[in-house]
Structure formats: C-alpha cells, structure tokens
C-alpha cells in the first residue's frame, strides 16, 4: 500500500537507507544498533551512511563485536516497547546471536502469553557471490522459517526492500530481514515517502502461462533473466517473488501453479533442507493430481561455499541452471 505515487531511481542500498531514515524520523522509539553503523563508516557496505549524522549517535549505536549482546540489547529494549533495528553484519555471524533470537525474541509473546511483545527487526546480509568463502557466504533463512515466532523477509528489488523493511520495523513481532549484498547496487524505481509492502504478499514479477518459477531474493533476478531467455524459446514462465517466507503467501503460489500446472523452486541457499523444500512439499501435496510435472528445485549445491570464483560459481544457482530447470519442467511429459 503505497501512499504516494512519486518515485525516484535508487539502488537497493539506498532504498534500505531511506527506509531506515524515514523510520527514524517517523517514530522516536526507533533506533539502530550494530557494528560500524555510525558515520563516517556508515556501515561496512555504506547502507547506514548519513543516519548517525542526521539522527544522532543515540539513535544509531555502534556496538562492540558481540553479536549475542547486540541481539540481547535489542530484545531488552523491545520488551520495553522500543523499536530496535539490529544489524548482524553478515548472516554467517548470526550463529552467534541465535540463542537470543530463537530462544528469547521468537518466543517472547507466546511464553508471556502476550504480556511482552518483541518488535525487533534483525537486518542481516548474505555475502554470497563475492568470493569470500565458506564462512561469509551462507543463506540461512530456512533455519528461521523452522522457528515458530519470527517473520522472515527477503527482498529482491529496491522498492520491495524499502516497503518490506518499513513493514518489518513497525511490525509488532520479530522480523528477520535478509539483504543480499550482490543486489545492493541494483537500481530501481522506489516510491518516495512512506512506503509499506504488506508482509505475506508474494509478488508476480512476471506473468506467464507455461511454468511458475517460485523464488525470492537474488534468485528472482536470475529467474527473470531465465524467463527472458525462455520466452525466446516459446516458453512463458511466471515469476513469483515470495518476498516473505513467514508469513507465506500460499494463495498466490497455488493460484499461479493452478494455472501453469508446473513449478520450479529457486533460491541461493543450499537446496537440501532449504526453504524450497518446504514450499515444494506444500506445492506437491496441495496440487496433488493437478501438476503436469514434478516440482524441480534449484539451490546451492550441498557444499561449503568455496572461495575461488570458478568454484563458487559452480556451487550457486545461475540464470542458466534456473532456465534449464524451467525448460525441463515446461517440456516434461509423463
């Protein structure tokens, strides 16, 4: 629900910065905390650039390298009704904050029977694709899907990033907001002023009748390119960008596949026991007897992410692998 029609072109990093800036302006309870967030650094990737200068260092807090304490401090403040946005710089480091996020934040409202909520947003980023190796390249969103009590959001465009992050910040429940560094520089039209994208609404990024590619995050970009390629071959792929994994927009997924009768699931996380496993399992059972092809999955291969570029590329999905899966699915005959 965009409340203004004005847009401007900006990068995804810029859109995230704008969402944070506007949230800080809109509500005095909002504050940011994390490593190197304040100016002049403005975040290791510059995403929070300018915010401490504008809103003050009491609103944009630099922290020690203490991921458990970053999460814990955010949680404590949230229990008091503050609105913290915590940054865990790289998703691989979230392992260190996991007890706090999983065992306290996700369970706070339930365990207190509603006496405390925990409206934190944890921003983190997948650094895959930069050749940083196995401990700086993981996409672990499936872990959080498996933990009842936290929402899981992965934007693929600057506009969605702004709208979804704004929704997360003001959501009364904990949200994990996963950014993709490889997309920080991607540009797009972004609504100016308050822009909220409702959590739990998938977005059909490209309509098509032959096969549905269900995807999120970086895989959306590949899926759109794959769809372009396939169009040249006479295959019209529909690209459904989930945007949020919890809540999940089952209706939109099933409605699309009800039309195409064929589905491919794609993400950059490891395929095995990834988000796509849940979604493929749901598609297969909900659409039982109505599919014209098995659901194919495309994800990272079951390997630690290697550092050398040739090897890294061989592990991650790609436009080609997604196109191949969609082609096989579209052309599958029993």
């Amino acid at each position: 629900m965009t409340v203004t029609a004005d847009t401007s072109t900006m990068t995804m990093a810029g859109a995230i910065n704008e969402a944070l800036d506007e949230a800080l302006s809109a509500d005095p309870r909002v504050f940011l905390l994390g490593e190197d967030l304040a100016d002049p650094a403005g975040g290791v990737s510059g995403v929070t650039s300018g915010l401490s200068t504008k809103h003050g260092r009491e609103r944009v807090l630099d922290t020690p390298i203490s991921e458990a304490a970053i999460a814990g401090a955010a949680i404590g403040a949230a229990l008091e009704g503050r609105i913290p946005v915590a940054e865990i710089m790289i998703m691989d480091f979230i392992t260190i904050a996991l007890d706090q996020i999983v065992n306290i934040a996700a369970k706070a409202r339930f365990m207190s029977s509603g006496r405390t909520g925990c409206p934190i947003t944890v921003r983190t980023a997948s650094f895959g694709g930069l050749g940083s190796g196995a401990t700086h390249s993981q996409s672990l969103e499936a872990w959080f899907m498996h933990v009842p009590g936290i929402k899981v959001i992965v934007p693929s465009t600057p506009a969605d990033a702004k709208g979804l992050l704004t929704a997360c910040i003001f959501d009364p429940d904990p949200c994990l907001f996963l950014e993709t560094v490889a997309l920080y520089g991607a540009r797009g039209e972004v609504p100016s002023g308050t822009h909220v994208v409702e959590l739990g609404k998938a977005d059909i990024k490209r309509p098509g009748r032959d096969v549905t590619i269900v995807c999120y995050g970086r895989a959306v970009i590949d899926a759109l390119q794959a769809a372009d390629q396939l169009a040249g071959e006479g295959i019209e792929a529909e690209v459904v960008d989930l945007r949020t994994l919890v809540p999940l927009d089952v209706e939109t997924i099933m409605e699309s596949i009800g039309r195409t009768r064929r589905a491919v699931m794609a993400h950059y996380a490891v395929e095995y026991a990834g988000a796509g496993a849940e979604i493929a399992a749901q598609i297969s059972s909900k659409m039982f007897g109505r599919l014209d092809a098995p659901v194919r999955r495309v994800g990272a291969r079951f390997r630690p992410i290697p550092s050398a570029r040739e090897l890294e590329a061989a592990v991650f999905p790609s436009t080609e692998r997604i196109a191949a899966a969609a082609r096989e699915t579209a052309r599958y005959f029993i």
Partner: protein
Amino acid sequence: MTTSTKAAPPGAEEVGRELYTKMTLAAACDERLRQGIARGEFAVTIWPSRGQEAIAAGLGAALRKDDRLVTTYRGLHDMICKGVPLKELIGEVLGRTAGASRGKGGTMHITCPEVGVMLTTGIVGAGVPVAVGLALAARQEGSDRVAAVCFGDGATNTGSFHEGMNLASTWQLPVIFVCQNNLFAEMTPIAETMHIDKVADRALAHAMPGYRIDGNDPEAVYQAVSEASERGRSGGGPTLLECVTFRFKGHYMGDPQRYMPPEQLSAAEAADPIPRYRHRLIGAGVLTADEAVELEQWSSRLVQEAIDEVLASPGPDPSELEVDFFADMKGIPA
C-alpha cells in the same frame, strides 16, 4: 530523568521487617512447592532457591517497583521479593490458567511486567544481554530506573555474560549484575569450572566496579544494591555484585546431591540466612520471637491461599495455542 517514585528510604527497623518478611515468604513458597512435589500433589519440577533468600530480599527491597528484573529458573525467590503475585507465580509453576502466562511459559519463563519482571530464562547466561537492553530503554525514555539481572556463578562462564557486561560498561548503562554464587553449577563445584578466586573480579575485564558480599546477609545485599542503584541512576554505570550463598536442596527438587560433601552442606545449613537474620532482628529488638513466628505463619498462609486459588483455576485449554503467538496470524502456518 524522571524522579524516583519511591518514598524516602524507610528506617532501619522498617527495612529489617521488610527484608525478613520477604525472606520468609520466599522460603515458605519454596517449601510448600517442594512438599507438594514430594507428596505427588504437583507433577512438576522446580529448582529450589531455599538458602538464597537473603539476596532476593535485599535486592527486592532496595529496588523500586519500576526497576526491572531479569532472573532465572532458580529465581522464584527473586520474583516474590520483587512483588510478583504468588498466584501468578505458583499458577505458572503448576501450569494453570491462573499463571503469569496461563501455563504457556512454565517455571523457567515467567514474566510480570507490572512489577518489572521482564524476563526469566532457562538458558544460563541468556538474560544478561537482555538486561542491558532494558537499561538502554530506560536511558532512551529518560527514566532513572535501573535493570537488575540475577544469575549463578556458573553463568559467569558463558560468553553471553561477558558480552553483556562489556556492552553495559561501554555504554555506562544502569545495570546491576547480581551473581548469586551458590558455589555449584548443577552437580559441578565452582573450582572445576573457573580458576579465579572471586567472581567479582570478572568485573575487572570490563572496568566495572565489582564487589563480593555476604549473600546470606540481607542487609549487606540491600546496602550493596542500594549503592549500585544510586550509581546507575546517576549515570555512574553498571555494577557487578557477587553475593556468596548456598542452595540447600541441590540443583533440582529431588536432586540426591551425591556430589555434595556432607560437611559443606551441613556447614551451609548451619549458616542458614533465615534463622540467622531472625536472631539478629530479635537481638536488635526489631522483632519479637512471637512476631517472627506470626510472620512465618502468615507467609505459609499466603502461599496456601495462592495454591488454593491456582488449583481452583482451570487447566489451560488448547485454544490458548491460537492466541498470543503472532499479533497477526495471517499466512502463519497452522
């Protein structure tokens, strides 16, 4: 800073009565629950705090009602002395709808924001960083309230403890770290899990004032907490208090304590803080022997009344699972 909502500090006599009352109430609750479990009346477990009441009483009496507390599975005494209604507390232990969280949380997860108990954790050390966030919220709100967090000696070996201590010190937040050093962590004596002599020295790693005090002397605790609160309220930052004490009943209700040297237990029991303080108050003319007996009877009566109310309340209905989970259940898996 808002000013204190608490009246001028009571005179020594009043404080003495308050401390002793709190101690007897905490002990009465612990004893009655253990009795009920031993008899098969209640099919639950507790982690008895018997022996550690002086700390809870000193802490509860020194803190303001709006000061915050985070405690642990062994913290029923802390909660009682901070003012959690017995009915809510016992109700949660027994898993009835009268409980603080209507049975959803359980003994290890009691929350009672009305009296400042914002979180109870079953995971050792986990509450420490959260208390830092509570104190951060106080500063952000311009309140001079403080946040106290209770934990055991064993908890000071966790990374969470150190991350939280460091963050509180770096940000000079009003946190009181209350280590209830009962010399054991489950079945393992303290000397096997740390090489230092005094837990209080762990404050040195974070340039924080750290004091070891007699945790069996409620007045010493009251005094130390009062000073630490004053320091915190006036912007002087956090304090670590190591309160040396003992747990008489082992780790959990029914613990055979095979690991416990009999002399150590009997020496500790001989120093039981309750008769010791009673004796002192009677000697000082603050209390008569009759009044002491009356207080103890009154405590037992309050506990029994709460138990009766709790048992009269219904067990939780499965419909509890449909509420107080996410604020908005749309798109959330069933």
